[in-house]
């Protein structure tokens, strides 16, 4: 499948925080290119008169009343954290 000219694999990788090797870039460019190609096919369908929708089912107003219930203990909440300190998750420094 040909690569889509609209696809900037470096930009996509950066937005996804992925460090790709040149081989991966080539492989994923081809794969994503075929996805984009499929979208182009869909874009050819005449949808005149069809109302845009975000969902397939005509369901709306699904909600719950504002009644709080207990959540996770801090121990449970942090059980999968790679590192923690003072009951908080340790992450790399994100500001200078």
């Amino acid at each position, binding site marked *: 499948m040909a690569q889509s000219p609209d696809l900037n694999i470096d930009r996509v990788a950066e937005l996804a925080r992925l460090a790709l090797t040149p081989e991966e870039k080539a492989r994923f460019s081809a794969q994503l290119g075929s996805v984009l190609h499929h979208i182009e096919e869909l874009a050819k369908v005449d949808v005149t008169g069809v109302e845009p929708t975000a*969902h397939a089912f005509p369901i*709306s107003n*699904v*909600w719950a009343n*504002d009644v709080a219930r207990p959540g996770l203990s801090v121990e449970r909440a*942090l059980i999968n954290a790679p590192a923690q300190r*003072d009951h908080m998750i340790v*992450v790399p*420094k994100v500001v*200078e």
Partner: protein
Amino acid sequence: MNYEAVIGLEVHVQIKTHSKVFTRVAAGYGHPPNTLTDPVVLALPGTLPVMNKAALDAIIKAGLLLGCDIAPVCKWDRKQYFYPDSPKNYQISQYDQPMCLNGSVEIELPGAARNIMGEHKKIPLTRIHLEEDVGKLNHHATDSLVDYNRAGTPLMEIVSEPAMHTAEEAFAYLTSIRNTMIYGGISDCDMEKGQLRCDANISIRPVGETKLGTKVELKNLNSISFVRDGIAHEIKRQLAVVAAGGKLIQETRDYDGQTGTSQSLRSKEMAHDYRYFPDPDLMPVHVDEPWKQKLRAECPELPFDKQRRLLADYQIPYTITSVLIPDRELSDYFEATAKLAGPGRAQAAGNWIANDLLRELGAAKLPLSASKVSPQNLAALVQLIDAGTLLNAAAKEVFIEMFATGDTPAVIVARRGLAAAPTDAGELEQWCRDSIAANAKALAEFKAGKESAINAFKGPVMKAAKGKANPKLVDETLRRLLAATN
């Protein structure tokens, strides 16, 4: 060349709900780190968001209070970005179908003096949408710590048109939004708790130019006075850059309220690309007329409308209304007291509230709701003074005791023997005669038409009466005697 500043504000208001916006774990401030989480907040695999009806009610109410058009249908979108404050790597927000469109915020600019009402104007709004708040990062020397308690708290973003031109207008705008949200019970808007946050977009352009100049986004305006100071500082900075022949660049700057300076935030990223798309896990919301009607019926009178009404109905000075109005409970308390006190006594009631009650509450660090002085008791105190039963100095003592004990003024007056003495008429008349005889100068002045000279006679009479004479009676007696004196 003359320049004008153009300012638009993005104001974030946390909605006061019991549970979070898309899950039912409790929302709140000041809890130990990571104790307000559940699988949805932490974005654990397989979890699904469920909307909070109260958050929807609140944003619709906010829109109604600010005169917005409420969208008949709106949806939810995912705003994608990688940052540790958002465990899902996206924030649920509203992109192209916000809940509220248009509307405006009435503001009041500073008057010529503290006791004069300033100019009012309306700042148009672009939109209000609902989203989820994100977690809080605590930055340390070598790492950052994440607390997800705040993540998922319902958050409204109120976006103004770029329609303000001075830091004062921005300050007035934020103040008005805060008062309105507090009146509506939508948020407590405590900036220290992050319940109200503000970013400002600021640019300058030559006067007469209609195109917007290069905009600078100012962040971290985390108190209302920092908003004013930060914007004033940024306008000055931009004018200085242009005056020096420089060129403004589009950037985000961080304002430091402590030092009164701002600095550019280094941005390693390209322009943001949030790749919004509809959230498939959340269904759209349809708002029909009955729903809006129900919420409209719950909307309180707006702060400025209430102020205009208090001025007109109770004939109280503007200064008192400007103390009462920002606090809905306090202004309700005033109205209850003024009604009970009766016609002509509203200003006295207002003075007691604005001066004495607020002073005592402040000293005791108590909210109004904890005050032992009921509107009934305060109204009774005002009536006792008006009737001459209680002198001002004694009334102050009575009030302090009312505040401490919650007793009625009548009970305190009786217990402490503070009533103006039902003076023996003959004795009072003699004191008045003595006072007039002892002050020939004041007598001459009074006879010459200087009305206020009568006050000079009152001191000695009060002294003779040990402060307990009925001031009305003293005044009447003096006038009668003066009229008969040559």
